[in-house]
């Protein structure tokens, strides 16, 4: 499960301060742009650990205390800028979403192992659910830079969340929403099954809620397709120190932050994405 150079950029050792350049709403999410002066170029699928420099405490139950894992959505090498997309679910994401231009965050990363590109003859199919769109934005951009033509399937709760799809620009894509308020009504894995039926050889790249990933895994296993899943797990450290973020694989527990977050679907143990 060792990661080639194309899948992991090593992080500078330690945490560093980065400044919020801008932040704005996109539908139900928030985009935060950081200036990471001198920071390295991350690989799509990698993530960073973030905490606010000030006021990282005092929310619900006194939290947050630990830094929070966020996939990067876009990196601009010209300006050393990193873009993140936030869904507020608790005190950590709430505090990060509150930050305004000029405020500072502690940043460690890029961390983990990103996506691996498919062989030339294979079509990359990107499947995102909700906030799981984030690493796919980076991956989509990279694939396009490499003249690949990925298919895009994105599922959201509703139109307000689906607004995030515009972060992928003019790309052609299939959108589903649970309530049908935008695109097709239904779940994105149903759309995936339909799309794969019409597709030649495909490799699937998915990020989203566990149940969605489990469905992707099932579909791809049945069709004998490679799939890479970007997993989430509660993390304390993000760099392999705590053994807290494990996922069950066919080889035993593996640290999502070190051996993932991107895993081959085939190595994930049954029931691990419950």
């Amino acid at each position, binding site marked *: 499960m060792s990661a080639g150079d194309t899948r992991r950029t090593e992080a500078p050792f330690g945490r560093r301060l980065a400044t919020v350049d801008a932040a704005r709403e996109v539908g139900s999410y928030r985009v935060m742009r950081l200036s990471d002066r001198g920071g390295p170029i991350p690989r799509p699928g990698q993530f960073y650990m973030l905490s606010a420099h000030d006021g990282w405490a005092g929310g619900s139950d*006194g*939290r947050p*205390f*630990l*830094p929070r894992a966020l996939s990067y959505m876009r990196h601009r090498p010209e300006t050393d800028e990193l873009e993140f997309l936030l869904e507020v679910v608790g005190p950590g994401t709430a505090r990060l979403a509150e930050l305004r231009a000029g405020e500072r965050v502690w940043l460690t990363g890029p961390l983990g192992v990103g996506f691996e590109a498919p062989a030339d003859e294979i079509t990359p199919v990107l499947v995102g659910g909700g906030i799981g769109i984030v690493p796919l934005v980076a991956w989509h951009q990279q694939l396009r830079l490499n003249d690949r033509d990925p298919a895009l399937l994105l599922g959201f709760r509703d139109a307000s969340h689906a607004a995030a799809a515009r972060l992928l620009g003019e790309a052609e894509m299939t959108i589903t929403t649970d309530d049908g308020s935008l695109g097709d009504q239904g779940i994105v894995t149903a759309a995936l099954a339909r799309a794969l039926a019409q597709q030649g050889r495909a490799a699937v790249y998915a990020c989203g809620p566990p149940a969605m990933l489990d469905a992707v895994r099932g579909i791809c296993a049945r069709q004998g397709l490679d799939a890479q899943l970007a997993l989430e797990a509660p993390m*304390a*450290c993000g760099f*392999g*120190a705590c*053994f807290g973020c494990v996922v069950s694989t066919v080889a035993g527990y593996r640290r999502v932050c070190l051996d993932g977050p991107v895993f081959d679907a085939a190595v994930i143990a049954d029931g691990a994405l419950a």
Partner: protein
Amino acid sequence: MTVRFGGLELAHPIINASGTFDAIAAARAFGRAALYERFPFSAFVSKTVTLAHREGNSPPRLWELGEGMINSIGLPNRGLAGYLERDLPELSTLPVPLIVNVMGFAPDEFAALVEAFSARREVAAIELNVSCPNVESGLIVGADPRECSVLVGRLRTLTAKPLIVKLTPNAADVPAVAQAAEAAGADAVSLVNTLRGMALRPGCAEPWLGAKTGGVSGPAIHAIALAQVHEVAARVSIPIVGMGGVRSGRDAHRLLSAGATLVAVGTESFRDPQAGTRVRTELAALGA
């Protein structure tokens, strides 16, 4: 800032707490050169090694607190054989002395671990994690002076390497256990391990952690650690590794003032991978 500790000469008094920094993983994440060049600790303490391979507890393993966390990691490790084959060669390249932390579920297991590591030149000292029950007596070794005395006495005969006994704070009389360890031949004690704690699934009566209960670490336990270090220091003359909720040089200074010779940084490394270096720098700035 050089410190003598149980026969070792260390560059400064800040080491890591077992299980809170994985030098092999950190080399993958940050690059070996960068890590080794700015290694935050004056000695490296490994995560607990057991005789048999362990997968650890089922997830979730983490719960966040306002000033700390609860973990139920469950001592995953390759086991003695795997450690010797895979981990030790890599850890022996570290720029600092290696302290191996071991735990047995019975005295014989402890003995096998200590004998094996005693034979390895790469190992500078052995730390005994006694926060677990002796499956034969059912008693927590680190909570019972007699259990501790018998165990340490036996292990003492097996090695000339410094033996550090890591005490658990979940005991009625920690100084009594420390005294027993000293009398049985321990070269040092380290404290505190985590305090037993628990979390529930939000809005529900079920335990959150896979192992139901876990261990509380971080600033929430610092004042408790300080009291225990202070009380133990008054009762033993062997050196103490103080730990528990250290996030700054000031916290380290407190533990040293209370009687510790070394200070270990644990949970704070999760928030700041170079916390060890920061703590040492802040400590130096306090003139200590």
